[in-house]
Every structure is written in structure tokens, then in C-alpha cells.
């Protein structure tokens, strides 16, 4: 069972490495969105510090949602998805593998880069670490929840727009607790409560989302 998980993760990482533009486009989307806000709002550091948590989290939400399109679509088109569904292992193992690889490729770089971007917003070290931690807990949850939407809209015309319609409302708790953790740190209250809620959401998503996604994949691949 673990062998298959490893094979899938390895395969998807290898594919991503051979086609690096996909990784980079998500990352640069994140960078550009975050860099645009000061241009629209003005360079006043006190304002930027205040809005930074919300901007980082909304940008992360959008970036993760944009990346969802590629999660299953390519496998669906070339027939690999059928082969995965016909594997003698439980499908949710496969889903976990694919989501993990997807997160490593589209989520993790964004998490790692966020402290660097945080400097643009004049954030203190403490806030930067809270931002890093909240994104580290939150973005995998986003990938997991988003995988349900990606699976449901496979092969549907206008699927990209539809995914955002289905998935964004479900992202709201992650957004609230993620941005809340950073904000609480900014205001000196400490973000532990928010972070533990994010952790709870991540665990919940880890248990439930792969099941829903594999059911959705079976339906969509018919």
C-alpha cells in the first residue's frame, strides 16, 4: 500500500520536475499578487502591516485554487486516471499521493517564499514565523479540500471557473483561522488558538477529503 503511494508521489514529482514552468507559474502568481497590493494601496508601512495577513492568505487561496486545475485533468485526458482507478489498492491512497505531490510542488514553494515576501510588508520576525507556520498548516488543507472540487469538475466544460465556485466557499474556515493566526500575532495576542484550529482542520481534511475525492473521481471517470 505504501509502495503505491510512493510510486505516485515519485511519478508526479518527476513529471513536475520535467515541466518546471507549471510550478513556477503558480509561484509567480503568488509573488505578483502580493507585490501588486502595495501599488494599489500605497506604501504606508503601518497600513501594509495591518492588511498583510489577509493579503497573503487570499493570495495563497487563489494560487492554490489555480493550481487545482492540473491536479487530475492531465491524467483524466490521457487515460492514466482509469488505470489508477483499476489499481488493486484503495483509491484514497492514490488520491493522498497525488495531493501530497501536488502540495509539494505548488504549495510548499509558496510557503517557503512567504517570509521573504513578508519583508515587503515590513513584518516583524515573530509575525513572519506565524505566517510561515499558518501557511504550512493551511495550504495542505487547501489542497485536500480543493481536490474534491477538482475531481467533481473533471472533464466538464468551463471546469476552471466552476472549481472556484465550488471550492472557495469551502476554503473560508482555513482563510479565517490562517489569517487570524497572523493577525493575532500582529496584535500581540498570540496565534496559538488559531493555529491549533488550523491543525484540527488539516487533520479533518486529511481523513475526509480523500474519501470524498475518490468517490468523486469514480463518478467523473465513468
Amino acid at each position, binding site marked *: 500500500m505504501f509502495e503505491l503511494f510512493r510510486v505516485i508521489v515519485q511519478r508526479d514529482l518527476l513529471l513536475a520536475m520535467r515541466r518546471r514552468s507549471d510550478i513556477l507559474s503558480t509561484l509567480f502568481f503568488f509573488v505578483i499578487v502580493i507585490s501588486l497590493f502595495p501599488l494599489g494601496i500605497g506604501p504606508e508601512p503601518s497600513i501594509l502591516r495591518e492588511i498583510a495577513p489577509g493579503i497573503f492568505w487570499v493570495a495563497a487561496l487563489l494560487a492554490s485554487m489555480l493550481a487545482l486545475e492540473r491536479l487530475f485533468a492531465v491524467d483524466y485526458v490521457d487515460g492514466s486516471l482509469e488505470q489508477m482507478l483499476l489499481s488493486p489498492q484503495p483509491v484514497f491512497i492514490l488520491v493522498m499521493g497525488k495531493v501530497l505531490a501536488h502540495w509539494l510542488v505548488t504549495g510548499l514553494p509558496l510557503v517557503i517564499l512567504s517570509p521573504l515576501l513578508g519583508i515587503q510588508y515590513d513584518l516583524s520576525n515573530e509575525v513572519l514565523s506565524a505566517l510561515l507556520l499558518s501557511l504550512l498548516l493551511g495550504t495542505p488543507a487547501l489542497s485536500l479540500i480543493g481536490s474534491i472540487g477538482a475531481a467533481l469538475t473533471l472533464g466538464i466544460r*468551463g471546469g476552471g471557473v466552476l472549481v472556484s465556485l*465550488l471550492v472557495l466557499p469551502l476554503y473560508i*474556515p482555513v482563510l479565517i483561522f490562517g489569517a487570524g493566526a497572523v493577525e493575532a500575532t500582529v496584535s500581540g495576542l498570540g496565534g496559538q488558538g488559531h493555529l491549533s484550529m488550523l491543525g484540527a482542520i488539516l487533520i479533518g481534511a486529511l481523513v475526509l477529503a480523500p474519501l470524498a475525492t475518490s468517490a468523486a473521481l469514480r*463518478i467523473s471517470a465513468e
Partner: protein
Amino acid sequence: MKKGLIHWFKYASPASFYPLAGRIIPWAAVIAVLLFAVGLYMSLFVAPMDYKQGEGYRIIFIHVPAAWMSMFIYVVMVFWAIIGLAVNTRLSAMMAQALAPTGAMFTFLALWTGAFWGKPMWGTWWVWDARLTSELILLFLYIGYIALRGSIDDNRRADRASGILLLVGAVNIPIIHYSVKWWNTLHQGSSVSFQQGSSMSSIMLYGMLIMALACWAYTIAVVMVRVRSVILQREKDTKWVKNLAEIQS
């Protein structure tokens, strides 16, 4: 016991549900009209003016029932989705499909009346109050369901995919609601809420209950008409539809 079960399964087939729904419609419609007449009379004439909110509070006679309905209907849709996924009856997915537009309509109505209540009470049309925000997210969930259903051509796939979406939404709603509440208390939004300040008099409670029942009867009537349309559309190639009196004439 066994006989009762068979009886129920009989109505689970679209062919036998279709005439049953047809018989329900006039009854539900008449009840809805009567209850609305009583409810409106109570809410506009009988209920006394509120000492704090003036005549403006009369809005809650439609706001609260609409908000109840928006949530009830979602729960009912989830119920049908579970039945549909578990037992694989076509009718249950059709019921969920027929309920969705009415549910979205009540959600919109709750938001609209919330805004019209908020303007005189809070001074702005929109306040990020926990209740209104949750209602807004519920509207997004309804729209997502309708959009997903509408963009899948194959009915069987549409039934099952939208069923899964409803289930996912049902798991998420409590989490969303809780997180919005948490967020709201942290940000110290509104201090006036709908029930606060005015102790609910029994006449108000009855008025709201009657309005809610009227909305129920209305929903049943409208949904039955709509589910009949859905049945006709999806079963158009079957013999029983071709032999219907409505079509033969």
C-alpha cells in the same frame, strides 16, 4: 411492516410519484395562500409596534422565516442526497434538484431583508454580522450546487456528483458557521442582533411560526410542480410519460 415498506418503494419510482405530486400541489397551494394571509395580517396589523425598533422590526416576520427555510431546505437536500447515494433511487436526486432554486431564493430573500433591516438599525446596508455572513456563504453553496448540476450533461453523473457536493457542504457548514462566529466576535462587529432588545412576545412568535409554515406549504407546492417538470424531462422516452393524458391530448 413489510407492506408499508413496499408502499414506500412504490412512491420512490418517478412514474408513481408523478400523479401523487400532482394531487399534493393544489392542497399545498391553498394552504400556503391561507397561511400567508393570516401571517401577513398578524405581522402587519396585529403585532404591536416595538418600543425600540419602531415599525421597522416587522421585517423580521419575513427575515427569520426566510433564514429558517434557507437552512431547512439545504438540510432536506442533503437528506435526499444521502438517500440517493445510498439506495440509488433516481427520484431522490430529482427532489434535491427541484429544491435547490427555491432554497437559493429564500437565502437571497433572507439576505435582502437582512440588509433592509440593517440599514435603519445599523446605519449601513451590509454588516459583516455572523448570521448574515453565514447566510451569504450558504447562498454560494446553493449557487455552486446549481452550477455543478447545470454543467454536467449526463444525468446520472450529475445526480451523484452533486450529491457528493451536498454532503461535503453539509460537513462544512457547521465548521464554516463556527469559524465565522469566531471571526465575528474577534472583530467586534455588530452589537445589535435580531432578537436582542425586543423580548419576543408570544404574538410575534406565533406570527413568525405561521409565516414559516406558509413558506413550507409554498415550498412544497412549488417544488412539486418543479419535480414534475424534472421527471417529465428526464423520463421523456419512457412509455408511461408517453401515455400521460397531458401529452396525449
